[in-house]
């Protein structure tokens, strides 16, 4: 069991810390957490590249790969693969260049706005893809889920049309915001230029 993440003054230290009721439970809890995390991730068949984006210790990789191998060997029939497609979960991460978290690294309100407008342009569309339906682990729960899945298939022709219309409105609004911003920047530039010209004229008069 290796959780030695970094070195401090020549000594290896736990970077992660967990205190329960005032006691340092880091070792025991991390072990329990690792086991449940690996089991959960195996259930959804994520590869390690996806999981590593969750910033979990790199030392867990070999154990995870082993667990995934044995899980895959156990169940690989076509029906379960079909239903697994609907169970698919995603690990959210967008590329750094379009990730909303980058807004926190802005250096001013102005920079924030520039980045925000850039990000909003690529987020104006809604999709009509199937989304995860929470299911309770009962017969009724599972039945309700399949009814909802059927309704989604059945109503797609309406939903797609509404989504298309909504996307048209969204993109028009996106353009309007962008054009207004560009116009304001242009007016500001013009004003700055006029002020500097006036200042030049004034300083020439003074001389």
């Amino acid at each position, binding site marked *: 069991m290796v959780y030695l993440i970094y070195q401090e003054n020549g000594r290896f230290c736990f970077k992660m810390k*967990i205190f*329960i009721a*005032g006691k340092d439970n880091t070792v025991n*809890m991390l072990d329990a957490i690792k086991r449940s995390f690996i089991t959960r991730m195996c259930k959804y068949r994520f590869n390690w590249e996806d999981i590593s984006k969750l910033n979990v210790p790199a030392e867990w990789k070999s154990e995870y790969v082993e667990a995934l191998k044995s899980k895959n060997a156990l169940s690989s029939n076509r029906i379960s693969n079909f239903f697994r497609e609907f169970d698919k979960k995603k690990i*959210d991460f967008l590329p750094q260049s379009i990730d909303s978290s980058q*807004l926190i690294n802005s250096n001013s309100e102005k920079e924030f706005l520039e980045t925000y407008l850039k990000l*909003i342009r690529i*987020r104006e569309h809604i999709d009509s893809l199937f989304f995860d339906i929470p299911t*309770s682990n009962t017969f009724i729960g599972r039945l309700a889920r399949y009814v909802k899945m059927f309704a989604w298939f059945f109503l797609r022709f309406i939903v797609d049309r509404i989504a298309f219309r909504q996307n048209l409105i969204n993109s028009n609004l996106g353009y309007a915001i962008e054009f207004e911003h560009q116009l304001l920047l242009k007016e500001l530039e013009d004003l700055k230029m006029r002020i500097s010209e006036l200042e030049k004229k004034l300083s020439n008069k003074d001389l």
Partner: protein
Amino acid sequence: MRVDQILAGFAEGDAISHEALIMRDIFRGWGLASDIFVDPAFVSPAVRQECLPLKNYKAESSDVCIHHYGIASSAQFVFLDSPAKKILIYHNITPAEFFKPFDDKIFFQLTEARKGLVRLASIADAVWADSMFNASELIEAGIRDVKILKLPLSTKQLNLTPDVSILNKFSRHKLFTFLFVGRIAPNKNIEELIKIFAYYHNFINPFSRLVIVGSFHGVPRYMAMLRMLIGDLDISNVCFEGFASPEGLIAYYKIADVYVSTTNHEGYCLPLLEAMYFDLPVITKAKGGVNEAMGGAGVMYDDLPPSLVAELIYHVFSNTYLKNEVLSSQKIRIKEELQRDFANELRRLMMQWL
């Protein structure tokens, strides 16, 4: 002799305003004249009758003037000019860097507040801090003889009847509820809380929701970023409830299953104690004054990625022994807090002037 208090702002549900009210009542109880002075532009309408306009403040050299300090404001100049004996209560200044991307004005105010801290503290006759963490900041800045007066937990507020409309709204669907109470500000690190919830909701328990109670008008750009993040993570059960009345706040504590805090900078953090009072398991990041507020109770973590914090929450709830241990540690902590004699602590600190 009068003992007056000067504040930068005054609002219902604000911990500092609440402390000022408790202190005013104690002073009046001792037979002293006491009022709270605030610039009316920064007073919320619901509590307008509790304070007087800052421009009406007058004092003599035999009076005492207490300034609650956490941000630069016109109140600090009134404090500086006051002929009374001066007491500065330092409630912590949030590092301005947190606000740099989101609000130039707040960034400037906090930078100025930090600059003015040493000046204010050096002219004060006494300097108090509401936690060891806050006191250590003052000591680092070269201020000596800092006394501690921790924020009081008011049971009067916590024993109000909960708002029925909120109880009804949330009891319609029985979902596992994460609660966070605090204004929506960048130092509260709410993006991490949302990521923890996203993992919990997507991979552990889809029948769950995150309820965030606190004003979201203070830093609108930060709020916009959070909304964008929620869209990116594709989660639906995140409820921004905004500011809550005292009765509303009780209702939120009653409907919650766990209190989770990911705040990166906190002077003390009273909501942690309030959550303990309502017997909610508290899971919090160990930063700043949070350690003192927790006092060895509940669950604290540091440097855990959001996915593993969500797993930690799952473990605390799936292991009855662990959960009981957490709850009993919190009961001890809250008992200790309720036994505090705030009036006596205040009297001891003010002895030389009474």
